[in-house]
């Protein structure tokens, strides 16, 4: 038997002799493996699920290639990295006489290869997909619009493109700003696919430019509105079958291709290759690829990589501390038997080997156990989360046709990574204990003096007083026995640092993703209303009449009116703060980084003209409440006769909401903390546009300023234009100005929020719905929730939020376990000490008092370290995010941290009670004789 075998045998022998300690260490390692599995398998599973959700928006394709000519087809078909490849051929418009809508007299026909149907997320609601030439499917919108078409009908198609010609001699040009088109008299221009159908008019003529192609198609199915369907377009989408048998685009014709890749890492290289080798343009499906950090949006990719790295580092840190603590827990006993080995000639290296040997022999069985547990946790976690996620997706009006299953993404690479990371973590955890063990001399180990200093400990006479016995014990236990308390202090500090930093990181990520992806500039937070009546200036009488009807209905319990002046209200640019202009310039420079002249010109121009101002009027009661919650001069606020305004300090500028040209730079974000130059009490000229007059100033007095918290009960605001809330006197004054103005202008909108008693108000809602239809939607009634209906991106943001908080909870659970282990370890090491105290006559009450004081001391120590470390980490995190993402306020979640602090104190007390519980049946003698862990 060689040396190592002997050491191994002895180590094994002690592991068997001390099953409790072995079990604790094993549990720690297995939990770490489980968590690693949760991170890697959980991440892939969540990403896969999110990709499936994201595919709902525009399909599951990774890359689209546009405008492929026949000669370029071999290059596209020769992309080896692609695992699925589909083609789309635009066939053109054809007349659709069966249409039920006067605005949509055409079908916009495209040929899809079988893979394209799949990759572009085409979902059949009736019939089937085309499987051969001469078959067509049409969007089901045609049926909703009342078209007289059914399965089996035959459509005779003669394909054409659309253009318009200017025909009005007296009109110099017709402008279509939304489409970026201008047509002059006698000029003919092509129009985009989504160009609407205009009735016959004197200014321009719509042309059908026949392509010379035709076909006869049998309707074999109806499909759910595809993602590219545009409600304003003149044609309904219709799809035919495109053979994928080597057919090439005809002369002068181009096709599009959609593809997915075996590995999403291939997307960018293939995209670059195609762009270099062909004239084609490409598009990356960022929604799908963002989660694997392969999207073309560098910020989203960076955020994804950051999230992954951040959480892996945190889990490793938590695991490292957990296992290290477990090894440290049994330090004294281990030191004793290693001391014995040392006394019979074991070298430092052999003693270190003993520790590593124990670590590895526990890691080997812990790996399969941890991996299985991890997979189980991910499976159960995702199954539990799924109903909520499904519900959430639906609240964002994302249509889910089929159940999106949660598929566990377990693969060999992942498991290997888990094994490697676990091995590294275990070895790192064992490293310091092993080095320390290697250095212990035999005599001090056996005597139990290892690691103890020979320093004298002055008598604490301040504590040697009546009633302070517990404090005496507690203070000395925590200060004179650091090897037993260090683990607990470390656990508390780790709990504080890891949960606070995870929470901060999770909130920052959510804020970043929300800022980048969130679609709602405004969220109406008004509570207690379930319907909204909406009307604009042009049809104010209809709105007023409906409002009276609502207010007089007995089913209505409460109403609140909001007047929105946006679109017509502006403010002087000179009233914007330097901070605003600095932010403005910073964003501008992202677009034209080296064009100083353009920067200066744009800045001068921007400062010259007024800027849009979101202006709302609430009731005077709400105005006062807002003012009270904000920073306002109440004497101005209380003077209801005087027009006054409350200004919301923040605006959010970004490369997404400020466009200075067609070439978009990488995403950058700036949160301006104070957008205004004004002071409370100053005059604030609201710039209003009056038809036939031009811009006029309407004077308001600045009543004060609002921050996020003050605004929160009413709105959440993420706009790039400043926000102002005016009082009723101001709104009345403005409306007075427009009393005689032609009602064709859009001056302001009114919203009446109202609460209808549950189960009542059917007659009212029916009547309002009829009024809406009779008046061609010039007034609108909708559910209150519809006001805040976010886009698809908001659903994704919400899912990420849930996952981030789940992860925070997981980290907190690891920290909790760590804390439990430390407290338990110390309790086990102190069994003898506790028994001695009891033999000396310490009562249960005194014992718990002593433990409570100890806890308070340990918590104070732990939190001091945690506060310093987490402060540092958060600052670092903040710097990293700001440097990459832009100037964004990432507030420290003090409330949650305070909550965690309280929770840790309570948890620590409970753990202590559990670990030191006495049934009264324990034999003091047996405990005194007992060995440690």
């Amino acid at each position, binding site marked *: 038997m060689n040396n190592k075998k002997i050491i191994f045998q002895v180590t094994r022998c002690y592991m068997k002799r001390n099953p409790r300690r072995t079990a604790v260490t094993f549990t720690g390692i297995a939990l770490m493996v489980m968590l690693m599995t949760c991170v890697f398998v959980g991440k892939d599973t969540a990403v896969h699920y999110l990709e499936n959700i994201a595919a709902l928006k525009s399909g599951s394709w990774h890359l689209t290639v546009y405008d492929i000519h026949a000669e370029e087809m071999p290059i596209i078909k020769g992309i080896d990295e692609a695992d699925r490849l589909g083609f789309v051929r635009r066939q053109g418009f054809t007349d659709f006489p069966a249409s039920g809508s006067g605005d949509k007299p055409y079908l916009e026909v495209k040929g899809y290869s079988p893979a394209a149907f799949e990759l572009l997320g085409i979902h059949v609601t009736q019939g089937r997909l085309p499987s051969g030439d001469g078959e067509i499917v049409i969007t089901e919108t045609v049926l909703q619009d009342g078209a007289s078409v059914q399965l089996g009908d035959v459509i005779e198609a003669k394909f054409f493109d659309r253009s318009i010609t200017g025909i009005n001699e007296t009109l110099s040009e017709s402008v279509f700003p939304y489409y970026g088109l201008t047509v002059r008299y006698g000029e003919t221009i092509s129009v985009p696919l989504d160009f609407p159908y205009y009735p016959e008019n004197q200014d321009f003529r719509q042309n059908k430019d026949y392509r010379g192609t035709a076909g006869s198609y049998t309707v074999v199915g109806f499909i759910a509105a595809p993602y590219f369907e545009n409600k304003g377009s003149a044609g309904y989408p219709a799809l035919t079958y495109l053979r994928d048998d080597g057919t090439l685009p005809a002369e002068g014709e181009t096709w599009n291709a959609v593809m997915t890749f075996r590995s999403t890492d291939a997307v960018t290289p293939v995209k670059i290759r195609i762009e270099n080798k062909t004239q084609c343009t490409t598009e990356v499906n960022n929604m799908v690829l963002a989660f694997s950090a392969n999207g073309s949006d560098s910020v989203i990719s960076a955020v994804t990589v950051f999230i992954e790295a951040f959480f892996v580092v945190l889990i490793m840190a938590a695991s490292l501390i957990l296992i290290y603590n477990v090894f440290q827990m049994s330090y004294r006993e281990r030191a004793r038997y290693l001391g014995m080995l040392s006394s019979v000639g074991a070298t430092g290296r052999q003693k270190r080997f003993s520790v590593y040997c124990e670590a590895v022999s526990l890691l080997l069985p812990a790996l399969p156990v941890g991996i299985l547990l991890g997979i189980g946790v991910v499976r159960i976690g995702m199954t539990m989360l799924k109903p909520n996620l499904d519900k959430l997706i639906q609240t964002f009006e994302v249509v889910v046709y089929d159940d999106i299953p949660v598929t566990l993404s377990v693969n060999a690479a992942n498991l290997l990574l888990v094994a490697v990371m676990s091995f590294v973590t275990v070895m790192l955890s064992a490293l310091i204990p092993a080095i320390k063990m290697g250095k212990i001399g035999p005599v001090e180990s056996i*005597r*139990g*003096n290892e690691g*103890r200093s*020979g320093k*004298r*400990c*002055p*008598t*604490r*006479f301040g504590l*040697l*007083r*009546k*009633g*302070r*016995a517990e404090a*005496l*014990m507690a203070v*000395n*236990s925590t200060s*004179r*026995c650091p090897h037993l308390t260090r683990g607990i202090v470390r656990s508390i500090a780790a709990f504080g640092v890891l949960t606070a930093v995870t929470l901060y990181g999770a909130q920052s990520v959510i804020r970043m993703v929300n800022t980048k992806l969130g679609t709602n500039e405004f969220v109406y937070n008004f509570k207690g209303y379930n319907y909204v009546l909406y009307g604009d200036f042009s049809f104010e009488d209809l709105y007023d009449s409906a409002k009276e009807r609502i207010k007089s209905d007995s089913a209505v319990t409460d109403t609140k009116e909001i007047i929105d002046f946006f679109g017509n209200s502006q403010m002087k640019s000179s009233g914007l703060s330097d901070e605003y202009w600095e932010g403005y310039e910073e964003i501008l420079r992202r677009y034209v980084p080296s064009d100083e002249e353009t920067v200066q010109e744009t800045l001068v121009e921007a400062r010259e003209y007024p800027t849009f101002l979101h202006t709302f009027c609430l009731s005077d009661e709400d105005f006062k409440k807002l003012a009270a919650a904000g920073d306002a001069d109440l004497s101005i606020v209380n003077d209801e006769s005087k027009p006054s305004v409350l200004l919301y300090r923040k605006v959010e500028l970004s490369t997404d909401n400020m466009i200075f040209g067609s070439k978009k730079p990488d995403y950058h974000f700036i949160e301006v903390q104070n957008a205004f130059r004004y002071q409370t009490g100053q005059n604030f000229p609201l710039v209003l546009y009056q038809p036939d007059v031009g811009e006029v100033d309407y004077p308001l007095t600045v009543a004060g300023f609002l921050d996020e918290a003050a605004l929160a009960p009413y709105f959440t605001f993420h706009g790039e234009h400043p926000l102002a809330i005016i009082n009723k006197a101001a709104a009345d004054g403005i409306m007075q100005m427009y009393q005689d103005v032609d009602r064709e202008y859009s001056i302001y909108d009114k919203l009446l929020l109202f609460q209808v008693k549950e189960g009542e108000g059917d007659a009212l809602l029916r009547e309002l719905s009829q009024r809406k239809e009779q008046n061609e939607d010039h007034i609108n009634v909708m559910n209150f929730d519809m006001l805040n209906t976010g886009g698809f991106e908001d659903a994704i943001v919400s899912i990420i939020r849930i996952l981030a908080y789940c992860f925070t909870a997981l980290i907190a659970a690891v920290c909790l376990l760590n804390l439990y282990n430390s407290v338990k370890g110390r309790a086990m090491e102190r069994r*003898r*000490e506790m028994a*001695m*105290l*009891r*033999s*000396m*006559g*310490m*009562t*249960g*009450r*005194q014992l718990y008092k002593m433990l409570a004081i100890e806890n308070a001391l340990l918590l104070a120590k732990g939190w001091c370290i945690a506060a310093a470390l987490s402060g540092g980490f958060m600052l670092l995190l903040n710097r990293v995010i700001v440097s990459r993402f832009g100037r964004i306020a990432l507030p420290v979640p003090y409330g949650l941290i305070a909550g965690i602090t309280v929770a840790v104190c309570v948890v620590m007390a409970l753990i202590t009670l559990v670990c030191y519980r*006495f049934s*009264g049946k324990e*034999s*003091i*003698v047996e405990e*005194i004789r007992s060995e440690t862990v």
Partner: protein
Amino acid sequence: MEMLRCEHLTKTYGAGETAVTALNDVSFSVEKGEFVSVIGPSGSGKSTLLHILGGVDKPTSGKVFIDGTDMHALREDKLAVFRRRQIGLVYQFYNLMPVLNVDENIALPHLLDGRELDRERLDQIVAHLGLSDRRENLPNQLSGGQQQRVSIGRALYSHPAILLCDEPTGNLDRKTGEEIIDLLKESNRSQKQTLILITHDEALAMQADRMIYLEDGRLVKNELIRSRI
């Protein structure tokens, strides 16, 4: 005056076939101020007897009366209070609190009883035990004899009615052992404390007023060596 009486004490460990009887129907009584030695071979039940008398272990059956109180009928906390007021325990392995220095170890039971520290008495005891220059040392910084002296100091400081010593010299050299026994005897004499001493050493046992001999858990001899009256 009777200070301690035990009636039919039996202590059995385990159950069934593996049951081991450590004490078997042991009864005796001790007068106030008496010095009693308990002697017997290893495994005869000496330490078990002492632990039961000290209230740190419970008998399987039988009763222990100290100053008329049925000790094992007391609830856990009452027993703890009773123990710290009436009994001073000196163990073979000292059982000092590792985080307290000499002063603090000696004063702890007194403070646990909610009493004010008598600094003068503490100084006297420390000086008497010859530990004046070791007051700020933790137990692991003391020799075995010094630790045992601290243990005795702890037992003496709060004036317990009975001093129970479990082989207090078992781990010490002869000279130190003698010093420890002298200390205990002096305390027994001067403080009129009842002293029950467990030992292997027959010569030491013979220094007591009475000697109790245990064998296989049974009291086989209860012999008066000398009378104080």
